[in-house]
């Protein structure tokens, strides 16, 4: 394989663009979440900093950066410092495999709007999303605090309850598109979105990603009512900020994946592909915020019960039915 300098430059430019856009979007997701939650609760939300409160993320950033970086006595120093990065970085790395627009032609080169078009993109996503849980588990364990430890135990228990059904719900997608490559999956949906063939898998995936990004009704590792702040109880300043922003990056990335797997990625009529993609991501983000404004938190055992006794069997049956249907259709 010969590397063209223009290709390398374009890839670096894509990385920089994705990084910048994702971080900005994550910062504004915090703002959007506060606004939408406020509207749900008949309030106005942040509206003091800048016009309509639009500079609120900046103010939050300054606040977090100037806070004391505190480490509790008895905390495991390196793990404690490493954990926030372990939570945020895999989340943003997943975005590398997501195609966010139709291929463009620039300087005579075909540029895929995707940082890395891996042939195991889907598996990479599964792997990275499991690594992100290490951030939660180690962060809670290293803090030397019982609330944090309880939060991380819950995070792990939650992981084993939803990861399986999440993986299984994606199997029909792979069967239909006959590829692990995300660009192939998107192209396979140019005619008809997979949500039409696989509504059940879509619902299972949606529930699983709500658990994956630790959102209500599955925010057990944080559970501010019971565990103070769960696994990040002892974090302050920008380390807390990393956990926090990691959660929102996760929402964006998982929303992007749900769009890629079931809603045809960047496919859509009339509007440019990138707009379609961003629109779908934002729709998922809004859905998550809306659900947070509505539902209460599940209990630990309810989540396990739900994951193991309902979602996983359903996903398995769904795979069988899909296979059967594909064989029948030839």
């Amino acid at each position: 394989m010969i590397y063209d300098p223009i290709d390398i430059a374009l890839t670096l430019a894509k990385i920089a663009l994705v990084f910048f856009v994702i971080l900005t979007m994550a910062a504004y997701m915090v703002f959007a979440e506060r606004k939408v939650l406020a509207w749900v609760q008949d309030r106005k939300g942040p509206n003091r900093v800048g016009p309509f409160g639009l500079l609120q993320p900046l103010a939050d950033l300054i606040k977090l950066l100037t806070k004391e970086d505190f480490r509790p006595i008895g905390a495991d120093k390196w793990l404690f410092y490493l954990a926030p990065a372990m939570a945020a970085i895999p989340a943003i790395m997943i975005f590398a495999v997501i195609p966010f627009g139709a291929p463009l032609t620039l300087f005579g080169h075909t540029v895929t709007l995707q940082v890395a078009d891996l042939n195991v993109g889907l598996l990479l996503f599964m792997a990275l999303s499991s690594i992100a849980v290490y951030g939660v588990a180690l962060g809670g364990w290293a803090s030397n605090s019982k609330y944090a430890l309880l939060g991380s135990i819950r995070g792990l228990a939650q992981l084993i309850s939803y990861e399986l059904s999440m993986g299984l719900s994606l199997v029909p997608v792979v069967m239909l598109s006959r590829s692990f490559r995300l660009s192939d999956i998107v192209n396979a949906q140019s005619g008809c979105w997979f949500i039409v063939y696989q509504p059940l898998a879509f619902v299972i995936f949606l529930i699983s990603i709500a658990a994956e990004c630790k959102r209500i009704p599955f925010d057990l590792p944080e559970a501010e009512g019971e565990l103070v702040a769960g696994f990040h109880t002892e974090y302050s300043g920008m380390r807390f900020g990393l956990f926090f922003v990691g959660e929102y990056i996760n929402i964006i990335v998982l929303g992007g994946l749900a769009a890629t797997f079931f809603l045809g990625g960047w496919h859509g009529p009339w509007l440019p592909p990138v707009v379609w993609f961003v629109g779908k991501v934002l729709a998922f983000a809004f859905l998550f915020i809306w659900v947070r404004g509505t539902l209460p938190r599940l209990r630990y055992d309810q989540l396990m019960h739900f994951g193991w006794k309902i979602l996983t069997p359903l996903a398995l049956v769904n795979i069988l039915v899909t296979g059967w249907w594909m064989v029948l259709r030839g």
Partner: protein
Amino acid sequence: MAIIKDIYALLTGMWITWKHIFRRPVTIQYPEEKRQPYPRYRARIVLTRDPDGGERCVACQLCSAACPVDCISMQSAEGEGGRRYAEWFRINFARCIFCGLCAEACPTLAIQMTPDFEICKRDIMDLLYEKEDLLIDGCGKSPDYNFYRHTGIGVTQPRGNGAGENRPVDVRSLMP
């Protein structure tokens, strides 16, 4: 089936929150918009005067005794004619919980609660209100009441001349 009922319940909840997104917020933007509290709202405490302009407070210490957090202190004194007054009178608003028990205890209706709730200060010592800060020129919520018109044991009028007060009885001339 239970699951259908559950899904229905979820969707109704989502529908309700969806409708609330488009409701007008009930927020009052505080420093710009202010809400007028009801007249009986319990906030800053004042010492009122009677309709003749005299101080109502007779330094009886009842408010101080009723106060659950002990934030009222005073020194009583007696003016000419035997009329009692507070030499100094101090309320520590940093401690006051605005329960209104002092106003309930006061026999002369001198100490009263007002709806003015904006009394935060930068320095906690500024929340120590002295008698000059507390005393107002009006009668507050009971404009006609004058303690000494009703009783007052011969301070402003001879005994038995108060409104609604019976004449003193001459026990020696009491005949069946």
